[in-house]
């Protein structure tokens, strides 16, 4: 049997998604029989782009170099997968979308007190793009696997699908569906600002007054954070409702649910989330799915 050729590439990201593939552990060994990695930057030094059946791209586009690499990947791979939240939605570095190229370069090389060299920009580095760009803005993507990084469970499922071994039903539910905590209606709960962890076991963080993005986030993680008492940061990007319906948004949905559960004023939650928009929208800030929504004004909320 011909082995399936997999080529991976790593753009503006943290390499966490590549490490997540290695996290398949012994499952990786089963995979090796059917798969040949022709290019994988964490493991081998391959400068060229060999022809491959499946291309897996991690990270967003931040520089011209990233853009060229992505175009080469599209040319050489039959199926291209946007792997991880950065590739699908821009990820945390997407915060660059708020400011634009010149503001960032000036801030770092000219306006900062410690800047030397008379504010000269470094030479020889690839030109920065105006903003952080998710992959599907530049090329056609065949499959999206968000997650920061995607849980090995979902990676294994997706790879099986790609190899054509089976067509598993991949869940499109939210993080809450995998969370073991129980949502409970309460009275007299106060909104907890800043980073806080759950004080009670088995009770939903929203019921305890902590803003947890579990209910507006796609489950690609099996709810690891909320199950351990840490609020969901929304790392796998918005849920299917938010993606498909223009009038639904992260902050409005959270505020609605939380005020129904705890009796905290909806406006108070909305105001807080707008003030902390860089935190609550951090993973999908540079995706048009979020910034094109009529109700989202992140640039205004961030004060520029």
């Amino acid at each position, binding site marked *: 049997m011909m082995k399936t050729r997999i080529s991976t590439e790593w753009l503006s990201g943290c390499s966490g998604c590549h490490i997540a593939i290695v996290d398949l552990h012994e499952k990786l060994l089963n995979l090796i029989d059917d798969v040949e990695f022709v290019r994988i930057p964490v493991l081998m030094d391959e400068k060229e782009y060999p022809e491959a059946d499946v291309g897996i791209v991690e990270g967003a586009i931040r520089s011209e170099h990233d853009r060229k690499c992505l175009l080469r990947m599209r040319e050489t791979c039959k199926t291209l997968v946007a792997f991880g939240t950065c590739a699908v939605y821009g990820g945390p570095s997407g915060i660059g979308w708020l400011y634009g190229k010149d503001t960032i370069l000036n801030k770092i090389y000219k306006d900062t007190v410690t800047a030397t060299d008379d504010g000269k920009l470094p030479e020889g580095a690839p030109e920065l793009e105006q903003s952080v760009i998710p992959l599907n803005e530049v090329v056609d993507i065949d499959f999206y696997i968000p997650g920061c990084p995607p849980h090995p469970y979902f990676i294994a499922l997706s790879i099986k699908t790609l190899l054509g071994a089976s067509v598993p039903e991949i869940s*499109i*539910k*939210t993080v809450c569906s995998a969370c073991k905590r129980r949502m*409970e209606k309460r009275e007299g709960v106060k909104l907890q600002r800043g980073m806080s962890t759950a004080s009670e076991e088995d009770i939903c963080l929203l019921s305890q007054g902590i803003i947890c993005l579990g209910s507006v986030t796609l489950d690609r993680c099996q709810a690891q954070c909320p199950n351990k008492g840490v609020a969901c940061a929304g790392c796998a990007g918005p849920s*299917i409702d938010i993606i*498909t319906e223009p009038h639904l948004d992260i902050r409005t949905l959270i505020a609605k649910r939380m005020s129904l559960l705890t009796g905290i004023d909806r406006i108070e939650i909305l105001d807080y989330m707008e003030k902390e928009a860089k935190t609550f929208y951090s993973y999908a800030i540079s995706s048009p799915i979020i910034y094109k929504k009529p109700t989202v004004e992140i640039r205004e909320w961030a004060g520029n």
Partner: protein
Amino acid sequence: MIKITIDEDACVGCELCVDECPTDVFEFNEEKLLPKVVREKECFGCLSCSEICPASAITHEDIIYSEEYYHDNENLALASRLAVDVPLPNTPSDDAHKKAALDDLGIRLLSVASIFRQTLGGSLPAVGTMAGRTLATQLPRYRIPESFKEALDIAVRQFTPAWDIKPDYDGSSKLEIKVKSCFIRELCKTEGIELGGDLCVLFYNYMAGYIGKLANARLKLTESCPGSKECKYDIEVFVK
């Protein structure tokens, strides 16, 4: 009939669906801490339970989405590639249904226009303008148009395909709008009504009001020439 399924593994027992449902379809089982579908036939497919459910545990079968453009098609395409089982809206595309609906709408519009004319008399154009302005504030828009030209493009896009509108803007104050095929023209033809009647007055003021509010400009209709091949409106534009 609509069939509702609750994924009991996913459910987090928040009871929000029980509170949200306008027709009391659900009841909460205090022992199991799960909601139960008790009056399924009362469901009319508003999907508020599905929207409020934090775990997206509620799915409906055999529902008809109310509007075709309710969903963002670009994002729907993306969503379908996130996983294999994304439900796509099954809007009816039956031509006979559409025609019947349009005929019905046409008769209603004509009678509304004539009632307005009888009760309001000369204030009829103002009603059209106000309606257009209200619509401009209520339709969701991705961003505020930066120039008058851009607002015009958005308006034309939103009026197509029911209206074939060709605006001709000279860049300063003169705007000429040519309407070739139009829902109202066809309506007038089938009903045997002369062009330029009450409904036309309502419509072209409505359009001017809409474009004006969208572009933050004041539009003054100077001349309207309904014709057998196309209607032509001359509009003076005061960009603020």
